[in-house]
């Protein structure tokens, strides 16, 4: 089975690992110790101390914290209980006019804003764009991912999570 150093995983995650090496990783058997090395790389990257339990986006993590298990932006902003859709606690910009769509598609044909809009979900603190939805007007916001966090740690990783630092409502 393969095994890579934490530095290699860090470079892989950052997209700076040279392509031939990345390609070899893609073609090889997967490294079974990846998850905790990955978490460790991410933990080094963030400025907060709350332990990261699971990434749910590129810069979005479920963390154990004094507020309970919450979804946090990499900047540290909390979107609240991880079981609730973090998007509902974000700030949003909707592009539903030709002008606002043209800002993203300056040289292409555009969708019909009567049929489709673009929704940008930002962190209210650092303005990171965490997710983009392309949806018909009126389409409910999607809850992208509801992980079975406890089951994952207990049954798949064989390392059950302890009690949360604080229970959330």
């Amino acid at each position: 089975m393969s095994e890579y150093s934490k530095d290699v995983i860090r470079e892989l995650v950052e997209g700076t690992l040279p392509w031939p090496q990345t390609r070899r990783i893609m073609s090889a058997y997967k490294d079974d110790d990846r998850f905790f090395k990955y978490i460790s790389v991410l933990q080094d990257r963030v400025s907060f101390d709350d332990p990261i339990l699971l990434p749910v986006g590129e810069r979005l993590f479920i963390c154990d914290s004094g507020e309970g298990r919450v979804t946090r932006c990499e900047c540290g902003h909390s979107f609240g209980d991880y079981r609730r859709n973090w998007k509902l606690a974000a700030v949003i910009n909707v592009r539903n006019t030709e002008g606002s769509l043209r800002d993203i598609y300056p040289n292409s044909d555009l969708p019909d804003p009567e049929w489709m809009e673009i929704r940008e979900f930002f962190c209210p603190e650092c303005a990171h764009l965490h997710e983009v939805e392309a949806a018909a007007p009126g389409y409910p916001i999607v809850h992208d991912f509801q992980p079975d966090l406890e089951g994952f740690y207990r049954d798949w990783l064989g390392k059950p999570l302890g009690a949360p630092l604080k229970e959330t409502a």
Partner: protein
Amino acid sequence: MLDRTANPLQTRLLESERLMDETGCYDGITELRLRKQDPLKFETLHTKLRAYCVSAREMARRISASPGVREVGEMVVAIYTPEGDAIALSNGIMVHVHTMSRFIKWMIKNGYEQDPGIRDGDIFANNDAFIGTVQVPDVMDVVPIFYDGTLVGWAGAVCHELEAGGITPGGDVCLAQERFTEGLFVCAEKVGQNDELRRDYIIRCERNLRMPIYWVLDEKAKVAACIDMRESVKQLISEIGLDYWQRLSKEFIEEGRRAQLARTRQLTVPGIYRGHTFYGHVTEGKPGFQPLADPNWLYNIPIEMEITAEGKIRMDFDGTQPWGYHSMNCTPAGMDGGMFVTLTQHMNFEGLVNDGAWMATEINIPHGTWTNPDNEMAATATSWALLLPAYGVFQRLLSRGFIARGFVEEAFVGQVNSPMIEMGGTSQYGGQFGMAHFECAAAGSGALAIKDGLDTAYVGWNPESDMGNIEIWEQNMPMVYIGRSIVPNSGGAGKYRGGCAFMSTWLINKTDHLRLVTSEHSSRVFDNGGLCGGYPAPTCEKHHAVRGSDIFAKAERREPLAHTPGTDPITSDFERTYQGEQIFEEGPYITRPHKTGDIFSHAYNGGGGFGDVLERDPIKTAWDVENGFLTREAAERVFGIILKDDAEGYPQADVDATVARRAEMRKARLAKAVPVSEWISKEAERVKARDFAPEVAKMYRSAMQLSPRFTKEFKDFWGLDADYAFSGEN
């Protein structure tokens, strides 16, 4: 255990299904005995079977006359158990490995052993999607493998035909609105005996197709591949013994099933994943569309995926749209096939790849929707139009799991539609012709989580993506290329951009009658998406054409020509360069015939982006601009990257100015954005007022009629009364 040689196939199939239900293991194989006894022999024998498949496919491609099969590789072959489960397969259009499985099982369940009989040397063909294929041009041939009088398996082959004899020329018969206009159907038919195709079948093909040479020679290529695999399997059985083969072939599949479950547990995280995409199609006012069809369609494709504690993947299409009088419906076979080909690319990159992987999944395709029509007269000739966006969502859902688990190198924003051109009429040689132009098999891919997507090098249905050589296409159609180039900005924006698409421009040449028809065009809405902050790739580009152009006169005068419509979305370079009737048409393109001197252009699609645009590397972006993948305008306006010119006039990133510009853009984001709760309150008023375009309202009405769950979620989200509904008829 049932005697595997003495009982009829139908009994054996039922027994196999019963054993799976009872034990949870394929054919009741609860222990991989042969693998345990001699793992090296086990692996070696599977490698041999795979080699038989790959070699048979390559040989067959040399028999085919079709540039789709020869150039682009639109073919796959596989070896099956007697009950029709795939044991081993070749590369190529792997979507059909499981659709062929359905075809074989259909024949068994429908008593083919009794009538018309299944004998050594028989050849069976099918292109009926309700029996087991995706669309009418996907014609499959299977032959039984007998060993000492016992049926021990099947060999099967599929080619995508470039001409199917439908209401519009080519293979993807976009104008078909019922099966009766889709073209030549071969419905689980015995088309040959004693290893020879029947002459009357060939005559039927020759009389009902615009370009029978493709179909007929592909038939011969497929039969050759099947015979080649059959003889190899027989030789193998003579070496290892029949009993060993019968156990081995089943263990291969059970091993594949277990490996898929293990890989899901290794690469992902259990839980519920959700996503959606849309497809918007415009036919209002276009010639030929029958009164049955709606003028315009908007389809929503929501997908909920559950990864269970066991590692099983469950996909649920509840909430999607009804089937319709158009050619984009799909059958359960096609939906299964889409799942299979996606899994082979994203999870089955090692080990035994076969039907076992599919058995580790479940799929809910609600009856009456486009995924599972309750009317077998529904047309499916362009089912990829909806299949590709749907399985692009599946790829994004899986990718979120890969990201959560740390396997970022496997995350991939997904496949896209690649609109196809079909054509027919009078060829450059003066005779009748028809062809699907398969250069579409090289779209841009979605971005990866660690790098940009592949430019002009990926489509979901065939991982061996290839656009084919210009010279070969020109031999087969009355058009010559005057341009084939990258479409700038066609990849979705993001930290990593989606792969770019290309576009071709042709001069119609040496014909007075060329019909051009395009399909898989979602022009009104995005039918792809981004991930983790990446934007969708642009919608399908509209077509530009010039009828009666002055290109010959310009060439005579040695004046410069326009080789693409350019990057100005308002006024094209064709309008600036050529005299003639300027056409600017939203797809699907269907119009009166073209003739010599006309110019036609067609763009394919790029993939969605990954990550926040403001994190894109400025240096890489300067390279993109220099090489035509991005425009300068997009670099600054979308990515916030300021470029200056170096001493030789090439774009160079101004890093300091970029940092300053991006800081302004972040401030502007927060100044403009509103809390989601505030937006929901305001938007709920619009929803309550049903203030939507007719197509959007119709989409909601249809989804609510078919899905109580969609209705509940919609009402709950917006806080609507229980009696909220959209009036009108569907």
